[in-house]
């Protein structure tokens, strides 16, 4: 779980999960300090290691749809539309 925790402490903003090829995959969407989306990462829930199913993604936080999490999730409903099993609340900012 160390890697997932690192992803979350690095600014994880949205967590979701789904089953794929017999693997429970956890999706973490991370944002930069301005709230713009810059990574989508996938982890194996059992091992805590990055999932080998599919790709992680890094994208330009300056692109229109990435400038806030809501717009990004609306544009990519597959992330938001699956069963939400592990909601993550970001730590309060100081």
């Amino acid at each position, binding site marked *: 779980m160390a890697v997932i925790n690192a992803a979350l402490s690095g600014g994880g903003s949205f967590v979701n999960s789904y089953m794929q090829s017999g693997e429970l995959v956890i*999706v973490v969407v991370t944002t930069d300090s301005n709230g713009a989306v810059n990574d989508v990462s996938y982890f194996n829930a059992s091992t805590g290691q990055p999932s080998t199913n*599919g790709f*992680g*993604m*890094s*994208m330009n936080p300056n692109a229109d*749809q990435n400038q806030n999490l809501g717009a990004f999730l609306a544009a990519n409903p597959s992330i938001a539309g*699956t069963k939400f099993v592990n909601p993550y609340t970001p730590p309060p900012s100081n």
Partner: protein
Amino acid sequence: MKKIYCAAMLLLVSIQLQLSPAVAGERQNPAASIASCAVRTSDIAIPMTSKDIEDIVTRYGTDPTCSIRLPRVIESIFRNEQRNEEWAATLERIINQAAMSHGAKTTGICHASLCRYEIQLTPSVDSARSPHAVEHAVIAVTSGTPHQVDSLQSYGSNYRFTIYFYSTVVPAAFLEPLRKEMEYSQ
């Protein structure tokens, strides 16, 4: 005995004839055996902006039915791409500089709209917290330039993975083959 032998041979030949097209088809299209990708991007008929390119790739990458197919398709397109010296050399320089400044070892090459790099991070608190710092640096440096890219990561382990940088400048050569393979070759 001869009749039985002949019948058996005929049966074997007919089975082989029935199997051959399927086997040949699978060899020509290695992604064919993977589940269908449910994403359709016909609402972006002709990609006009970098947002359109990013939008299409992100849809494939975030949909579970497509993401499992994506690595093999991207690798296949990368292998078939011819090198554009100006684009490739500039990006290779940027990627190598970003990797050096983050203490990462990289080996890789760019072609015309795709780059593939193997990256090995030095295990540390920083690299665990920000394993994509190299990609972020490359994306930031190229943003708004003719070499603008985003990236996809295929993992081997926490600190060692494969990165594909893809052009988000229209027209990106990889995009139509990608759409064809993801949406129409199933």
